[in-house]
């Protein structure tokens, strides 16, 4: 059971308070009508599924209810960063280097 930091509640809580909602920073096309089938599949189904440093969406569903983003190494499961929704994605390579991964 992972230990997750909620940047809104500013506390670490057990994973069971949260729901993980997959890869972060995948924006729904603003004007779907103009989007090709290829791009729509990209939005619906295609994910990086990275073996390594990965930015993903979490929701503190049994806490403050807020969505936020976290950077996690998908082999060690260590979290490298937590940031609020709407904040830019940190540079993953830099984070990876800092963590020595």
């Amino acid at each position, binding site marked *: 059971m992972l230990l997750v930091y909620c940047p809104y509640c500013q506390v670490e*809580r057990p994973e*069971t308070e949260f729901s993980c909602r997959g890869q972060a920073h995948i924006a729904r096309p603003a004007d779907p009508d103009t989007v090709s089938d290829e791009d729509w599949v990209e939005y619906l189904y295609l994910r990086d599924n990275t073996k390594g440093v990965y930015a993903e969406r979490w929701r503190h569903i*049994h*806490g*403050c209810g807020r969505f936020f983003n976290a950077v996690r190494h998908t082999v060690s499961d260590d979290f490298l960063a937590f940031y609020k929704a709407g904040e830019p994605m940190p540079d993953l390579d830099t984070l990876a280097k800092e963590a020595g991964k």
Partner: protein
Amino acid sequence: MSDLLASDLITPDAGENPLLSQPSVSILKAAPLTRLSLRLRNQSVKDAGDAFGAALPVTPLGSSVSDKRAALWMGPDEWTLLAPEEELSAVFDAIEAKLSGQPHSLVDVSDRSEAIIVSGEKAEWLLRTGIFIDFSLDAFPVGTVTRTIFHKAPVLVWRTGDDTFVIEAWVSFMDYVSGLLMQSAQELEAA
């Protein structure tokens, strides 16, 4: 002291027998309350507090208590407001009046949840049989309020004293929550 102020708001339901009364821990059903869910943007925080009668806490997991009022931080733009049962419309209307024109959402959720009061030297231990939170006083000081999970049910935990916690759960979950707390407390009676 927060204990005192909360206790004139969260009171044992006179009609009810204690769910559990042991030397080291007791569980009491709390009397009905006015509960409002308030959502708004930062600029409206002060007005809302003024209208309600207790400032809206802005520190995460914080609560502010004044006479017959309590405002609980639920999220960065969400508060639960507590007041006596009979003051529902008064409080509701006052806030709506003050916030008219300001984007917000005020919803009556008085009946959505029920509260129990868990107190005694073993109260903290009892909660930890189902809640994975560090309740030591430095990590979870008096006045802290949070939503979390108790075994398989969502609950709200509000520490109103060193050894006193208010536990709220949605009505249909309360049998599960109080039932498991009572069951887990049984071993305290063991020889």
